[in-house]
Structure formats: structure tokens, C-alpha cells
């Protein structure tokens, strides 16, 4: 094959290596992973030989080229590659990615199509960048389609490759961190080089051999050289990146701790003043409440105050994922236990009578109601979703609750802690050693069996004080907001309330997204 390569073809082969390298570099930079890419010998392939190479599912990105290269070519990832890369870009934990590779089911891939397409999109971006710099008369590359599945039963229809055609295939092997190495590559149908070939017909044919040989030799030498030079650099870079990340994490942890402490102190002070000032009123109220809700256990004021202080911090600190999970695990049955209250009495009082408080920390309008603080972007799922699917949806959307129903009408609601209490505790990485198949089976429990229903809802004009009272009495942390026809128009979570309390600008519309749960890191 090498002997019949034209100038553009051999250039394209050289640049494809750079393009995959740049892609690896870009993904490393964006997601903090170590990536290594090895080019393997290019070959002439047919659909049947490609079928042998990519036996399982594959992601095939069709790329339209204009300019020196003209037509459509394909960038392909094997099943492991598409699971690893998509998992990394949506920041799934590595244990989760490894499980997916092991299982390799269609369901594992179904939930990730958007991410897989974006991987392809970024890959095409890297390719376009490299070819723009390296290939004369390069127009552009545009990702026109991403096929995910088994393309080989109808390659013409599915990925635009003719069954009897012969293609130039350049295989690559990519290794990311400690994940298994996976295969990918570029498929160049001869037609993408046709235009230039015709233009340069005679000249090209005469010079091609010499050029190809020279380019290949130079390419090999350069490759050896860069590989030798790059290795220590890369290692040093990775080490520095890891150190920097660790430092940032520790700093953030310290800051969060200090802030939580300050806030807890401030709240205690605020509370004692408020209590002193309004002792009689508080007592009266407490009595009334105790009577009204005899089934609710008495609120331990000390505990709730410190919980409330810690919660918004967790939501604002990306590094505290583990902490939150631990906290959620510690109280798996929060919804069933109002005593472990979602909203403290203190905060409710602040909202009810803000004017009487030393208000440098908290300013909130009495007129604030659900529509001012609600999130309009709510996550919906199906009653037949598995616990695992629901978890993934919630992780991807970065929310703590998922609404269940159709056409805006609610059948139920499910929270992360509903899920935490439904799945086996042995699925946690720390218990991996003792994990049994029955534990995995709990991931397949359907949402309809664990969701809460009927769902407590509020109206857009429900006041903040009402919302807090409702949350405190019922112990739920998320209240869907419904209109006159009972259609969901948004939701209010405790995080939205904290955000409103802390920002003090709840009078204005805050469609901005409050962190609902820690980022997926």
C-alpha cells in the first residue's frame, strides 16, 4: 500500500497521528487524565476485514472534508473506547466505567449517546485544527453523523462505506490512565483523495514515490525523536498536574471547613438573639406546632442548625462529593423521618420575620414565593426506568431528584437517598470484595417500586414561609411546583432556598441553576 500513496495521502497519514495526539492532549487538559496514543501500521481494509477488527459495538463518526481532501471519511472507536471516553467526559467514577466495560451491554451505551457524540465532535475539532495547520489547501472537517452500534450488517446505509470498497485504514491504540487500552482509527475511502489526485495527476504520480518515501522516513525519525523527548516532559507535566489538583483539593476543603464553622457560629449567634428577642412568641409558636403536628418528633435545634450550616457548603464545594454521599447514606430514610428535618426551625423563623434579625447575612423578601426561586429545568424519568438508569440521569443532570410521570403530570418523585436506600450497600467500592450477583441485581429495581407518591406539590405563588413549613413538616427536600392544571412548571429544593437566603436577591427571578448536588468528580 505504502508504495502507491500520493503526497496528500501520506501527508494525511502523518497528520492523523498528530491529530490523535492533539486529541489526547486536549482531553487530558480538559479532564485531567493521562492519555497515550500509538499509531499502528496502516493497511488496506475492506468491510469484512474491518468487521474482524471491530467485533463488538463501535462508534463511527462521519467527517465531511472540504479542500485538499474532499468527501467523507470515518473516525472509529471500539466498544471499550466509546465507553471509556464517554464515561470520562461525563465524569463517571472509574469503578462505574470499569463495570460498564465488563458488562458492555447496549443499555450501558444507550444512556451515553450524547456524550459519545460529543467525544466525536471534539475529536473532529482536534483533527480540523491539526489539518488546518499542516495540510495545504485544507478547507474544513465537519462531523456530519455519529453512528453507535454494529455498523457491519449494512455499512453503506449506516456509515456510508460500500461493501465492496477498499479503504486506507490507520489503526491507533489509546491508553487512558489505568483503563484497558482500546482501539480506534481512521478510515479513508480512496475518494477523499481523488480530487487532488486528478488535479496533480501526472506530477503527483511521478513524485509520489519519492515524496512518500522521504515523508515516511522523516516521519519515522521525527516520531522517534519526539517520543524520546516527550516522555520525561509528559511525566513531569502529569506529576505537576496531580500535585496542583491535590493542593487545590486540600485548600478547598480547608476553606469549606472554615466557612462552615463561621456560618454555624453566625447562625448560633443569630439564633440566640432572635430567640431572646422573641422568646414569648417562639414558645407560643412551638406549643401550637407541637399540637398541630403531634406525629412529628421534636426538633433537636442544635443538630439541625449544624446540619443546615453544613449543607449549602457541600453543594458549593466540588470536592465534598464523598462527604455528601456519606451524609446521605447516614440517613437513608430521610423522607420518612421528619425529625431529621430538611429545613430547620431557625431558617424558617428567619424567613417569617426577617426584619427583626441582625440581617447582615440573610436578607430575603417576605414577598418571595415559589416562582421566584424555583428551577424551571426539572429532570423527568420513567416509572419503568431502573435504579441504575435513574442514577445516571440524575448524575448527568447534576440534580438530587427526578420527577416521574408523563406530559408534565406527576406520578411520583424519586430522590438520590431513595435510591441509596434501595440499592445494596455492597455496591459501594469499599465493599467490592464482598459483592455478590444479588447486589448487582438491586441496580435493576424499577423506579416505580421505590418512588414516593402521591407527590406533595406547591403552586407558583406559594410563599417561602409556606414552603419551609411544608418541607419541615413532611421532611422532603424537593417540592414540585404545579400550575392550575396540575402540570409541573418547576421545582423548589432546599438548595434553592439556601441559595435565595445566601444571595439575598430572591426578589429578582433566579433562573440560574443552583447546585443541586455535588459535581460528578
Amino acid at each position, binding site marked *: 500500500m505504502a508504495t502507491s500513496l500520493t503526497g496528500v495521502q501520506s501527508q494525511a497519514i502523518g497528520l492523523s497521528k498528530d491529530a490523535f495526539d492533539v486529541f489526547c492532549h486536549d482531553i487530558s487538559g480538559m479532564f485531567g487524565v493521562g492519555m497515550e496514543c500509538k499509531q499502528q501500521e496502516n493497511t488496506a481494509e475492506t468491510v469484512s476485514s474491518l468487521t474482524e477488527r471491530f467485533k463488538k459495538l463501535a462508534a463511527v463518526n462521519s467527517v465531511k472534508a472540504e479542500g485538499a481532501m474532499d468527501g467523507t471519511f470515518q473516525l472509529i472507536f471500539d466498544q471499550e473506547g466509546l465507553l471509556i471516553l464517554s464515561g470520562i467526559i461525563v465524569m463517571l467514577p472509574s469503578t462505574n466505567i470499569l463495570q460498564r466495560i465488563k458488562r458492555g451491554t447496549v443499555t450501558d451505551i444507550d444512556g451515553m449517546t450524547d456524550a459519545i457524540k460529543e467525544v466525536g465532535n471534539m475529536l473532529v475539532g482536534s483533527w480540523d485544527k491539526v489539518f488546518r495547520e499542516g495540510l495545504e489547501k485544507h478547507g474544513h*472537517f465537519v462531523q456530519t453523523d455519529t453512528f453507535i452500534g454494529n455498523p457491519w450488517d449494512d455499512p453503506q446505509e449506516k456509515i456510508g462505506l460500500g461493501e465492496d470498497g477498499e479503504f486506507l485504514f490507520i489503526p491507533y491504540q489509546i491508553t487512558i490512565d489505568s483503563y484497558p487500552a482500546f482501539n480506534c482509527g481512521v478510515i479513508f475511502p480512496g475518494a477523499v483523495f481523488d480530487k487532488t489526485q486528478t488535479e496533480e495527476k501526472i506530477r503527483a504520480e511521478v513524485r509520489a514515490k519519492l515524496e512518500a518515501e522521504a515523508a515516511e522516513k522523516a516521519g519515522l525519525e521525527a516520531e522517534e525523536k519526539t517520543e524520546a523527548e516527550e516522555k520525561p516532559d509528559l511525566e513531569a507535566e502529569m506529576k505537576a498536574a496531580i500535585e496542583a489538583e491535590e493542593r487545590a483539593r486540600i485548600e478547598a476543603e480547608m476553606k469549606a471547613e472554615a466557612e462552615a464553622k463561621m456560618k454555624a457560629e453566625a447562625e448560633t449567634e443569630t439564633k440566640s438573639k432572635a430567640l431572646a428577642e422573641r422568646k414569648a412568641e417562639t414558645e407560643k409558636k412551638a406549643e401550637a406546632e407541637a399540637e398541630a403536628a403531634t406525629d412529628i418528633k421534636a426538633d433537636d435545634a442544635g443538630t439541625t442548625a449544624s446540619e443546615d450550616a453544613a449543607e449549602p457548603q457541600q453543594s458549593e464545594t466540588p470536592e465534598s462529593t464523598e462527604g455528601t454521599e456519606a451524609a446521605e447514606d447516614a440517613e437513608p430514610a430521610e423522607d420518612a423521618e421528619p425529625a431529621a428535618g430538611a429545613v430547620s426551625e431557625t431558617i424558617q423563623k428567619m424567613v417569617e420575620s426577617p426584619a427583626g434579625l441582625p440581617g447582615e447575612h440573610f436578607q430575603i423578601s417576605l414577598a418571595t414565593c415559589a416562582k421566584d426561586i424555583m428551577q424551571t429545568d426539572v429532570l423527568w424519568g420513567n416509572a419503568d426506568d431502573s435504579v441504575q438508569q435513574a442514577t445516571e440521569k440524575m448524575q448527568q443532570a447534576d440534580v438530587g431528584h427526578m420527577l416521574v410521570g408523563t406530559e408534565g403530570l406527576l406520578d411520583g418523585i424519586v430522590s438520590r437517598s431513595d435510591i441509596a436506600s434501595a440499592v445494596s450497600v455492597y455496591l459501594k467500592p469499599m465493599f467490592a470484595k464482598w459483592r455478590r450477583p444479588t447486589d448487582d441485581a438491586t441496580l435493576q429495581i424499577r423506579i416505580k417500586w421505590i418512588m414516593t407518591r402521591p407527590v406533595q406539590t406547591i403552586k407558583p405563588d406559594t410563599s417561602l414561609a409556606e414552603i419551609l413549613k411544608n418541607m419541615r413538616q413532611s421532611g422532603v427536600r424537593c417540592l414540585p411546583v404545579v400550575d392550575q392544571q396540575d402540570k409541573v412548571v418547576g421545582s423548589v429544593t432546599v438548595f434553592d432556598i439556601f441559595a435565595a437566603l445566601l444571595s439575598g436577591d430572591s426578589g429578582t427571578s433566579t433562573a440560574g441553576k443552583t447546585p443541586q448536588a455535588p459535581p460528578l468528580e
Partner: protein
Amino acid sequence: MAKTLLIVDDSATMRKIVMRTVKMSGLDFDKTEEAGNGVEALEKLVAGPVDIMLCDVNMPEMSGTELVKEVRKLPDCESTKIIMVSTESSQELIDGVMADGANGFITKPFTPEKFQEKLSPFMN
């Protein structure tokens, strides 16, 4: 003064990545909103203009380049800085969209440093 940000991209995954990268770049936004297409973006801008809009180019129905033209017709969005985010980076595309009123261009894949570099001039 803290700024407001609108991220427009048809891919939910990419919006999350952009948001995460903005956070990592250390730029501080008071409020961050998302829109999954051009129409949704326009609705949000009419409801309340933002300081900076990060806009995908390749979107179904209304493309990012069309969206820029529409945004520039909105009277309240004259001072909104529009930064395009695209995998395609031909000079032709960049020149065209800048002439239509975009203020910057970031190519995908991107790094936090790139966001820092391209957005910080508009943060004051």
C-alpha cells in the same frame, strides 16, 4: 461586579463540560443559565439580558451564527459579549460570525486556560 453567563449548546453533555471548565478557569459568575437551542436562548435573553453568552455554532434548527444575528437585534443585548464555541475553526467562519457581532471564538476541545484567556477581558 459579578457577571451573568448563558451557555447555549444543543448537547447537554457539552453544556455541563463548558460549565465545569468555566468553573475550573476561576472566572466568577453570579448566575449561569443554559439553553439547548437558539429559540430557548432568545427567550432567556428577552426575559433578562446576560453579560456573556457562550454559543455553540453547530446546532440543529437555528445555528449559532444565525443566533448571533438575532441576539444583535435585541435592544437590551447590545452589551452582551458573545463568544462562539466550535469544533470548526475556519477563518471564513470566524470572520463571518465576528462580522455579525460575535466578540470572540473558542475552539473545541478547550481548556480552562483558554476560557480564562478569552473571557477575562470581558469580566470588568
